């Protein structure tokens, strides 16, 4: 096993062992998703008549629309939080210093620390989608997931992860620098919920806000994933969004890593690496 794979495996094992040691918490962490999905199912039923699906997704219900939006908004939140919260947690527990005196590069420490959250969120997104589909079926409705859209969905998922990861690493850089009150996290999270098309269509926003929403990766990710999952779109049909997400990834990941390495160096200069 290469050093890189071995180190990522080490982070995975560590977090798995840690999570499993809190057995009840591990089992109940999905309860929140269940209640949220159920709440939105009934809200959706009362708003069903007023919802107009996008032109490319005729017949899609508001519940299906919001289910995909919520699932991937969780992804964004987890990405934003996992890097910064892990770094802060390691600062608090005193283990950051212990990791940084090993020959493992700081950037890998960051990526490895977030690995578990990524995997768990992926699992949780799957659970949310299946839960939503099951709930709808239980009440005689259909979410309408399209199997034909799965290849495009998985490619989009990978691109969404990398695009969000860039912002997450940037957020971690702010955490190392400011300790608390990371502005990237607050700003991107709030703007994405408001403008990213999570709970309502972007077209419902005033024109100038729609332009701003285009600057957020979640807007493109949600549009494409809905097309793939709910409309059965193939790779060619979501190529435009894929290119945009790729562009976000190419720009944001190096930017995040440079910012993180810079903030780490600044913390080493200022002596604030393990302060919290």
């Amino acid at each position, binding site marked *: 096993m290469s050093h890189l794979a071995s180190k990522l495996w080490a982070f995975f094992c560590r977090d798995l062992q840690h999570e499993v040691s809190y057995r009840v918490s591990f089992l109940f962490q999905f309860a929140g998703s269940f209640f949220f999905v159920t709440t939105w199912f009934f809200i959706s039923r009362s708003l069903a008549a007023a919802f107009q699906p996008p032109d490319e997704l005729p017949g899609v219900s508001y519940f299906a629309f919001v289910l995909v939006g919520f699932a991937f908004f969780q992804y964004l939140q987890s990405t934003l939080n996992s890097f910064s919260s892990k770094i802060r947690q390691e600062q608090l527990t005193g*283990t950051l210093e212990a990791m*940084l*005196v090993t020959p493992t590069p700081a950037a890998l420490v960051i990526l490895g620390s977030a690995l578990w959250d990524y995997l768990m969120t992926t699992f949780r997104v799957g659970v949310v989608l299946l839960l939503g589909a099951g709930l709808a079926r239980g009440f005689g409705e259909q979410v309408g997931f399209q199997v034909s859209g799965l290849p495009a969905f998985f490619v989009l998922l990978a691109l969404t992860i990398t695009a969000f990861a860039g912002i997450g690493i940037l957020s971690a850089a702010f955490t190392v620098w400011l300790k608390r009150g990371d502005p990237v996290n607050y700003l991107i999270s709030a703007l994405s919920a408001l403008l990213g098309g999570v709970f309502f269509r972007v077209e419902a926003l005033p024109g100038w806000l729609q332009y701003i929403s285009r600057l957020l990766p979640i807007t493109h990710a949600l549009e494409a994933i809905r097309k793939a999952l709910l409309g059965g779109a193939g790779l060619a049909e979501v190529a435009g969004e894929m290119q945009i997400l790729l562009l976000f990834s190419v720009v944001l990941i190096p930017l995040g890593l440079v910012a993180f390495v810079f903030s780490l160096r600044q913390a080493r200069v200022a002596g604030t690496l393990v302060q919290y």
Partner: protein
Amino acid sequence: MSMMVQVEGLTKVFVKSRSLRELALRPFRRRERITAIEDVNLNIRRGEILGLLGPNGAGKTTLLKILTGLLVPTRGWGRVAGYDVVRDPTRVRLSLGFVTSEERSFYWRLTGRENLHFFGRLSNLTGAGLRLRCQELLERVELDDAADQRFMTYSSGMKQRLAVARALLHDPRVVIMDEPTRSLDPSAARHLRRFIQEELCGRQGKTILLATHNLEEAESLCGRIAIISRARIRIVGTLDEIRAAESPRDRYRIVLNGTLSAQGGPYRIVDEVAMEDSRREYTLEVDREGEGLTCFLREALNTSCRVVSCQRLELPLQEVFDRVVQADEEAT
């Protein structure tokens, strides 16, 4: 390479952060600077244990953190196993192990073995090699029976021994220890000291930089001692060299049977105590060449005293330490 740790002109200045009030009232005022270490020079030979002593806030931890790459120096340079701590931090970390007295640096809900496996992988160990190395170290620090218990159930001594095992995972040539026996009971501390001296230094020939407040520990373990005070290394040398530098005159305790009628000479009687019978105990300060002692003994014999005992008094390290620190405080 005979020098495993080299430090020259190492200086670290911290810029103090300002409160909101200060920012509002004096926004353009230069931020206060705190010099943690200044112009530190130090060399540690292969296989040597060097003790770093100093009062709280003297700069010991700052020096150790620069050597481990956790802090960037403001000026000067440091090398570990020949690698520059700023330019080549990865090679430096491959060459050194860091034992911290900070218990929080482990994952408390993981077992001792799981913790070692995690840090072992981060130290480039993999597969069977990793498992064997962890087992070997757990046995060597006598934690093999408790290896599968959670770290949070360990006593302070066990936690400290696991910290030593962690620092040795990748078999580093240099081991830096920050107060390794701080939270240990006397027996556990003695055990760890023996391990450092006999196993790490004696058998494995590792170079050790040991920061400690425990002067007895420094005296028993370290070949050389460096005393740091107010950001500067004030003195470095063997214990005898430091004693000689701090006290150019020797002290003797002499017990005479009879009363000396001192004529005066190149000696100074620091203390004189009457004992039972007709014995008297003199504490004498004399020159190193022996002239004062010879003169005193001659006078004693001339006045028909019998010399019952004559013992050279070594200046305790505590007194040497106090003198260095006090002299430094007076100078500033």
